[in-house]
């Protein structure tokens, strides 16, 4: 098992979430319990283990925050968001959007809850005067996001490419990043649970998938 669970075992207090300390926030979005949707958390935890980032670049496993993204991203000058996306191309296809292209599409009718995490939150941050000036969405087309633990081969293979794109983006923004001399093992704690058993999204049946 991965964690000490006794008194004093909580991670030390740091700046994440306590203050609006991050000038740049890298948000890994997605649900670690639904197959390929673990991409965002997997990427940010791996980035954190393998790269040395300046203190004002904050890395956050944000889960699926919906409109709470507003609270998590507020005050940042720039944000990088990593998530699975609905788009063309085979599983593992990587695409990048910037602020202008994300906000160019009109929102779907107001009853639509989809993607409020990002686009609605950006609109909301803009309105409050806290909107980031730089935005990158690094999206990967998933194979399946059914309930169960473990990403498809295509998504596992995409992780290094996503990280390279993040590093490239940071450097483009003038941030100095270096590979860790002794990279730690990324904290992918959810992988201790049964892998490769999934509940099919349409039929609802349990099935196996190699993970």
């Amino acid at each position, binding site marked *: *098992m991965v*964690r000490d*669970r*006794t*008194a*004093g075992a*909580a*991670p030390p*207090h740091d700046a*994440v*979430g*306590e*203050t609006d300390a991050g000038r740049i926030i890298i948000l890994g979005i997605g*649900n*670690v319990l639904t197959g390929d949707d673990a991409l965002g958390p997997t990427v940010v935890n791996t980035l954190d283990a393998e790269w040395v980032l300046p203190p004002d670049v904050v890395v956050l*496993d944000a*889960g*699926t*925050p*919906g409109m*709470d993204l*507003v*609270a*998590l991203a*507020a005050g940042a000058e720039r944000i990088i968001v990593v*998530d*699975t*996306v609905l*788009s063309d191309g085979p599983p593992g296809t990587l695409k990048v959007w910037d602020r202008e*292209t*994300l906000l160019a*599409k*009109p*929102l*779907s*009718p*107001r*009853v*639509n*809850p*989809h*993607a*409020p*995490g990002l*686009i609605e939150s950006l*609109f*909301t941050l*803009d*309105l409050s005067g806290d909107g980031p000036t730089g935005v990158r969405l690094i999206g990967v087309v*998933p194979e399946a*996001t059914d*309930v*169960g633990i473990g990403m498809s081969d295509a998504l596992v293979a995409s992780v290094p490419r996503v990280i390279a794109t993040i590093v490239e983006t940071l450097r483009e923004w003038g941030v100095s990043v270096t590979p860790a001399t002794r990279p730690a093992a990324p904290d992918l*704690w959810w992988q201790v*649970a*049964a892998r490769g058993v999934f*509940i099919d999204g349409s*039929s*609802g*049946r349990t099935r196996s998938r190699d993970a």
Partner: protein
Amino acid sequence: MARIVVDPVTRIEGHLRIDVEVEGGSVTNAWSSGQMWRGIEVILKDQDPRDAWMFTQRICGVCTTVHAIASVRAVENALDLEIPLNAQYIRNLILIGHALHDHIVHFYHLSALDWVDVTKALDADPAAAAQLAESISEWPGNGRREMEKTQNKLRALVNSGQLGIFQNGYWGHPAMQLPPEVNLLAVSHYLQALDLQRKANQAVAILGSKTPHIQNLAVGGVANPINLDNQAALNMTRLYMVKDLLDEVSTFVQQVYLPDVIAIGAMYPEWLGYGAGVTNYMAVPDLPLDSAGTEFDLPGGTIMNADLSTFRPISTFGDAYLRDGVAESVAHAWYEGSEDLHPWEGETIPNYTEFQDDGKYSWVKSPRFYDEPVQVGPLAQMLVGYAQGHEHTVRLVDDALSRASSIAGTQLGPEVLHSTLGRHLARAVRATMLSELAGRHWELLVNNIASGDTTTFEPFEFPSGEIRGFGFHEAPRGVLSHWVVIRDGLIHNYQAVVPSTWNAGPRDSQSRMGPYEASLMDNPVADAELPLEVLRTVHSFDPCLACAIHTSDPEGRELSAVRAL
């Protein structure tokens, strides 16, 4: 007869579909269909029960902490374990911070725009809006300059041709009836609420080590080291940061959120008459004051048929009345099985059919309490508190009703709470109660530490053989319970019965409607193409379903739809 399908209806990700039939301008039949997050038992089978909370807090990205708390309470209940006072207080402060955040966001950012016409705020006289606001609240953010600032922001948005976050409202709908000044005031508070919800979130982050997923829980207590002089621990500096943040949020709730809801309630009096639906209510007590969970600051119990005299208490962790009363029906849900099952025996064997009006039409099971449908949520908690004469509840409910009565110019009693706007009012009253309790639990924690107690964790061992437990939490959307069966220290079965299941579930084995469905009956619908009224009632429950799945949609592929068939 027209059939309207609203799909999906939550503003947070999740899949909830509402079908209504409309005849003669009002709703004559309704169906609520949703995706339930199912499969946690598959993921947790044979896992260490001490880790379950880390997984369950990923079920929903919006309701993270509530599933973490319910999970550790379930395992502690199975172990019959009492936890240190410091751990209770720290957990309570996290729960309060989370709930304040959630209630504020729900009202301003997820449902106020069902009642407030943003575009009409442009017609307001800022001075008159400020004068009106200052007559009902001492909030410093109600001045004329604040109103002008808001109006200028809005005007810039409108002139740019891009309404941004406001582009999709039902602006100009005939059911929007607030005067321009009230619309302007509400939009100002919408903007201010963005700042306040961040502060509530920061308080949770300090206590929980991180947000949105807290890191400090443990079966047996919390993992926070308490050392008032240590920079890396929960020290006095951090405790004062928490206090300042919660104080600011509390002031906003008392001086802005509650007065706004009271005013909207008084200005839409007909909506204190629609939307009652199922008037059996259940709430669980919360904010424990002792190690064992026998005394609480928030009231629990049930009332049936809107009759306050039927009150029965739910009063302790492990309460037998609650434990023995829960069963889930799958008669109209896409699962196999014919009997209603208790969660410890719960199964999830899918049996998908098409959407059948008279058959199966939802992935959500229908939980029943001693065979009855019940409504859960802040309204349930305020009503069971009121029924039992819980002093704090009675004071706040009576005060809110008397303020609403004086604005409406008519006497409003507790019976108006069984309604669409009653749910909003009850939520604002509950937030007010939590805001008053925030300072109390902070003091309880600090005084206990000052007395020399820095214990946060109670050691334990799993026995061999089978143990069972359940943990409950009165979450922002109502009664949440987690049920666990442990064999030889490993999880054998695990079920989460979530608030939105109680409220959004389909018909049961006796074909009785769930609370969402029943609440829509007889609601007016002025325009079938723009069913604002349907959204008002559904949003009043604070719907949240299947929040687990999130795939960004930067190209706008998932088209939501309001279809009038």
